């Protein structure tokens, strides 16, 4: 129980830290008053607006008032959308979750077979090919990969849509379950290219991780013993070796989500994906401070909550974590 309380308190402190850093970073990037006045505004009008919006107050007062509103769920109105910033963020969040979850599934379920195949064929052309691709995957920027995929699969072969999005989570959240599942095939179809572009780095990293982990496990005594007992190779690999080898990958999963969310910003721009990454990008360009703050805080809460859940699950599985 103490462990849970401690972790909850830690999470709260991190969230407050995120709000402070976001607040300060945006304040330091210039005077936000200019966002609220017309291009033809006089200096007097600008000064009046600054005072009316409270931007002339000391920073700590502005931050405390921001924090007080935030506790009540009020991030202020978006400057460009003319509506509550949190609404714009919550509308964009499902699209990002679709992309991130899909990419996470790819990062795990594509990486494991590749890593196992490479390990079982160590030193062979199969191993070499997989590891070359994996190496490239850790070097290629996701936006470049995205554009190349658009050129090849979208323009040359014309088998995948170049851009766009069909929602799945949003109708699900709204209770339109029939609509959500009727759209699922299209939703997945639109997810293939952006999902792969986001996941490619993680697939590559995980494949290498599984390979080295498998090689280590395969050389251990219990595998030799299992083989000596005459157990089939399939059983040795899947039941004995893989079960041990993929533990490092499972450990990565908690961290993976935050990493993937970080990667979606550029990919969302390339594929016109109406998610939170694109929202943040546009909001920064337009200096729509309330939207940037709301988006960063919401993402931080999602990330921290997931880490908390992973930690709690670990604590349940392995009591040593609590120590």
């Amino acid at each position, binding site marked *: 129980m103490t462990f849970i309380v401690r972790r909850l308190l830690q999470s709260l402190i991190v969230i407050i830290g995120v709000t402070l850093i976001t607040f300060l970073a945006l304040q330091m*990037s*210039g*005077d936000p008053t*200019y966002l*609220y006045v*017309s*291009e*033809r*505004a*006089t*200096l007097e009008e*600008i000064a009046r607006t600054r005072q009316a919006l409270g931007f002339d107050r000391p920073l700590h007062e502005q931050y405390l008032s921001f924090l007080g509103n935030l506790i009540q769920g009020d991030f202020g109105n*978006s400057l*460009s*959308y*003319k*509506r509550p910033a949190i609404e*714009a963020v919550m*509308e*964009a969040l499902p*699209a990002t979750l679709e992309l991130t979850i899909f990419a996470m599934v790819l990062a795990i379920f594509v990486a494991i077979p590749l890593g196992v195949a490479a390990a079982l064929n160590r030193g062979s052309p199969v191993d070499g090919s997989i590891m070359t691709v994996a190496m490239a995957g850790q070097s290629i920027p996701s936006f470049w990969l995205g*554009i190349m995929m*658009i*050129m090849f699969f*979208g*323009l040359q072969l*014309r*088998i*995948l*849509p*170049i*851009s*766009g*999005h069909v*929602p799945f989570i949003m109708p699900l959240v709204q209770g339109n379950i029939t609509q959500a599942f009727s759209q699922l*095939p*299209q939703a997945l*179809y639109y997810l293939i290219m952006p999902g792969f572009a986001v996941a490619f780095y993680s697939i590559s990293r995980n494949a290498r991780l599984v390979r080295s982990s498998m090689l280590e496990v395969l050389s251990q005594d219990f595998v030799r013993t299992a083989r000596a007992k005459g157990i089939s190779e399939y059983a040795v690999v899947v039941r004995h070796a893989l079960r041990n080898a993929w533990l490092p990958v499972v450990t990565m999963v908690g961290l993976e989500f935050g990493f993937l969310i970080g990667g979606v910003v550029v990919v969302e*721009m*390339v*594929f*016109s994906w*109406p*998610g939170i990454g*694109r*929202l943040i*990008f*546009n909001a920064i*360009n*337009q*200096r729509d401070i309330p939207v940037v703050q709301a988006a960063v805080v919401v993402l931080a809460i999602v990330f921290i909550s997931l880490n908390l859940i992973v930690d709690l699950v670990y604590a349940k599985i392995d009591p040593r974590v609590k120590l």
Partner: protein
Amino acid sequence: MFKKLLLSGVALAALSAPVMAAPADNTIVVGLSADASTFDPAQISSRDNANIAKHLFATLFQVTYEGVVQPYLVEDTKVSDDGLTYDFKLREGLTCHDGEALTAEDVAYSFNRAADPANAFTGNTPGFVYTTLGFDSAEAIDDLNVQIKVKARTTLALGMLAQVYIHCKDSYEQMTAEEAAANPIGSGSYRIARWDRGSEIVMEKVQDPGNFQNIIWRIIPEASTRTAELIAGNVDIITNVSPDQVGAINDSGTSNVEAVSGTRRMQIGFNLSEKVAGMPGAKEIQDPKVRFALQYAVDVPGICQQLLGTSCERMTSLVNPPNGNPDLKPIPYDPEMAEKLLDEAGYPRGENGVRFSIRMQGPRGRYLADANVIQAIGQMLTDVGVETEVELLEWASVYSPLLRTKEMGPLFFLGQGGVTWNPLYDMSLFSTPDAATNYQSWTDPRWFADWDMARSAETPEAARDVINRMLKLFYEEGPWLQLYFQPDFYGVSNRIEWQPRRDEEIDLFFATLAQS
């Protein structure tokens, strides 16, 4: 295993078929870089947003491709002798998208709603149009007649009225500001069928004008993705094609790039304000001879060909063609003449070859190829002995505030929008010595004496001589280096026929399917 993969591939291809289909014959698809932020008529301020809105909301007047202001909802116009009262008679049988008849009361409501300070609207209408127009009040006389009063005579009135979106009282009175932003009840040819924020806006036609039954505005922020969608035939028109993608589109066989000379006036401004008096170069540019000499140092045609990939239309003043002074010709690139004039102005090269130093600031990523253009000009000025220190700044948080407080420069790169329908609109940047848009702080008394005469004339034609005199003064001693009208590149599918406009407006009413 291979068989399974093959089957999956076939299934995928089958699934893809409907998605990859070209737009239907009754539908036109436009790829934009940014979504609409609001559809409240009094809050709309960005160009992309306004381009979508003009298909939803009718206006009293409209500006044609050729720059002629012509009636839209209005049938008859009467102006009082003092030029302060406008009486408009509406066409009969107008309706709103909510099914109600569109009457003079709705027109008056549309105008007064935007002007009401209690609503605190910040869109183009209350923030700019009303100031320029000198809007005073609007009143319905009867069902078809509406009266609009302005505070001073202006020949800009009808053109400014062409920017005010008409919407209907009954529906808007019942909506909160938030509802009004998302649920436009318009008066124009199209209404919104669906708005998937961040993805697309689907419109359907309700009345003329308009040749397509449906318009789809797809939001595609990334330029190369927009290009790919155009080449693939999934969209019909794309905006903001970058010069490096022009070749790919023209070679595609499915689409072409249409370049127009926009109305945005690109300039190197001279900041003549006392606020920058301490900066290097600020004193030297106070001399009109120096300003004029520097014009010879800049190879504008070369910049256009090499950096923008097109031959731009040169500027000779701040007024867009065809309203400029026809006697003025672009100053040629002649660095020797620049050096000669700088010598004559009393700034010979020193022992180190430098006449004087100056700082030039500009934005990065705001205008077409801006960073490259600014750096090229910096080098050209340095070549004639004016050692130019170039500083590229982020637009929104750094450069724009500097412009607002007039602390940039002393040389600065800027593009200011203009129109084709009235020279005085373009000249209104310098309406007073301390006007917010007089970023150059140019205070020549001859200009402002003439400005009062030109503004109070009953028509621009009546003020023609004065306007020409003012433009000649601007040409010879003015506060900016004349560069070019910014070219705009549109990608257009071979499937349709459509004419881009110079004023950055997208007008789909008269687009048609191409004759095959």
